[in-house]
């Protein structure tokens, strides 16, 4: 059995091999197609010259156009040939080529599957031709070898085949993109209700980016409302500047106030309770507790070295004094004291 010249190239680049093999596949496929359709279908007359490559040029495009309308894949000639190759036992060796190159041409396995489907389809279409297919295959093998020798001698036509191949790939990618769009939208629907418009990126990465950006923008808007004078400013960097200034100024104020409190506190020990009681109370009652409390203070420092007693006494003071005042404020200090004692 003659070895197909493609095998010699196998040692070389796998991708070139793949192209040559697909070219061979096309060639065979076109041969088969021609044989099958000659009798039944009356297609447009193809120039059936000695070199079958022009025929190959004509038919693949036609096939592609037909298949573009259907969502199925496009490689019908390849499908047919793959099917035929599978049927033929002694072509196992050559069939191994696509499988060897499967890493680079991953759709080969898919092609084989589609070949099965399409062959069935084709068989349904052309029932009398099915019997002729195996018989044609033997002829095709011979013709394949002839064509491969021809292919080697005609690199220009080979290029044309490659170009048609590329065109098909592009078309396939177009299809794939459309299906991917649908897939993306439908897959994203339960998670993010995003309808990608025409011209907008529908890549999953850009969708995620967009969601992330929207999150950030929402939070920035909240911050802008918080910080005074930020809503007029546009641009994230300037807004961030304003926010930073605001936080710094607030922290500086806290620093000054704490110094002030420290200075004040050194003089008076916890006259604050009375003042707080005054704060929570009403206007008219403000003075009265204020005057009552300091008189009770001398008792406190004597006994109040221990925290527990301190707490108890303060609680008593709260109860005594705060009858007029807001009751919710009463409850808070007690709970706070209990909380702090656990600290």
């Amino acid at each position: 059995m003659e070895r197909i010249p493609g095998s010699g190239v196998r040692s070389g680049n796998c991708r070139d091999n793949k192209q040559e093999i697909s070219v061979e596949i096309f060639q065979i496929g076109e041969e088969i197609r021609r044989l099958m359709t000659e009798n039944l279908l009356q297609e447009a007359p193809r120039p059936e010259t000695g070199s079958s490559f022009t025929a190959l040029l004509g038919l693949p495009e036609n096939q592609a156009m037909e298949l573009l309308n259907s969502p199925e894949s496009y490689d019908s000639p390849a499908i047919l040939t793959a099917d035929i190759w599978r049927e033929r036992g002694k072509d196992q060796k050559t069939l191994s080529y696509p499988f060897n190159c499967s890493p680079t041409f991953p759709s080969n396995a898919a092609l084989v599957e589609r070949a099965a489907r399409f062959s069935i389809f084709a068989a349904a279409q052309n029932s009398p031709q099915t019997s002729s297919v195996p018989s044609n295959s033997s002829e095709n093998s011979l013709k394949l070898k002839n064509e491969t020798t021809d292919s080697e001698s005609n690199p220009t036509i080979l290029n044309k085949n490659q170009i048609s191949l590329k065109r098909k790939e592009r078309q396939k990618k177009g299809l794939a993109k459309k299906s991917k769009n649908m897939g993306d939208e439908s897959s994203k629907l339960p998670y993010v209700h995003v309808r990608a418009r025409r011209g907008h990126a529908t890549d999953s990465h850009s969708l995620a980016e967009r969601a992330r950006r929207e999150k950030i923008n929402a939070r920035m808007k909240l911050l802008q409302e918080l910080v005074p004078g930020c809503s007029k400013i546009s641009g994230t960097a300037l807004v961030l500047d304003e926010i930073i200034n605001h936080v710094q100024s607030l922290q500086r104020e806290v620093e000054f106030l704490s110094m002030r409190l420290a200075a004040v506190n050194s003089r008076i020990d916890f006259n604050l309770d009375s003042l707080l009681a005054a704060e929570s109370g009403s206007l008219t009652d403000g003075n009265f507790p204020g005057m009552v409390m300091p008189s009770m203070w001398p008792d406190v420092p004597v006994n109040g070295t221990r925290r527990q007693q301190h707490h108890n006494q303060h609680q008593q003071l709260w109860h005594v004094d705060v009858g007029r005042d807001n009751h919710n404020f009463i409850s808070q200090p007690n709970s706070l004291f209990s909380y702090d004692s656990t600290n």
Partner: protein
Amino acid sequence: MASSLISNPVENSDRSRESKKKKKKIQNQNQNQNQKQTRWKTKFEQQIYSSKLLDALRHVHRNPSSAASSDTPLRGRAVREAADRALAVAAKGRTRWSRAILTNRLKLRFKKHKKQRVTVTGNSRSKKPGVSILRLKGKKLPALQRRVRVLGRLVPGCRELSFPVLLEEATDYIPALEMQVRAMTALAELLTSADAGSGAAC
């Protein structure tokens, strides 16, 4: 009386602002954000915080060993830390910065002598080398990045957070700071007035 005069206008403005904001927010956002937005603005919260702060201040004065009693700057720092801790407690530990404040003190206590310096320098070194390199070059490319880092340093415990989370923390931290300032000013006013009052009485 002065105290009530001071507190009441604050009250009124707070309450009116609070009611306005509540109406807006209910229309726009979730209930969760509602609570978050107005959480630090209520007078109620401020009172809670004030009493907590009082207790903390009391503690500071009770134990002068923790800070130098006569040195005002040290005591001022102690007061500041106490105020921050009280604020973190008032936040009920729901936010990162509050938890960071509360745990920082524990860390400092344990690592006081030796490692305090290391943590300081470690924090500055924890910046990405890319930022320092760019500073050397003088490029302004990651202008946003730089600002994000600065903000991360300002908000306690938010140094190496992602940008959206950092924004969220800042959204809670800023009203908390504002409330802290309001409460402390009120306290300081009260104290100084009481001081003056008692001084005059005596």
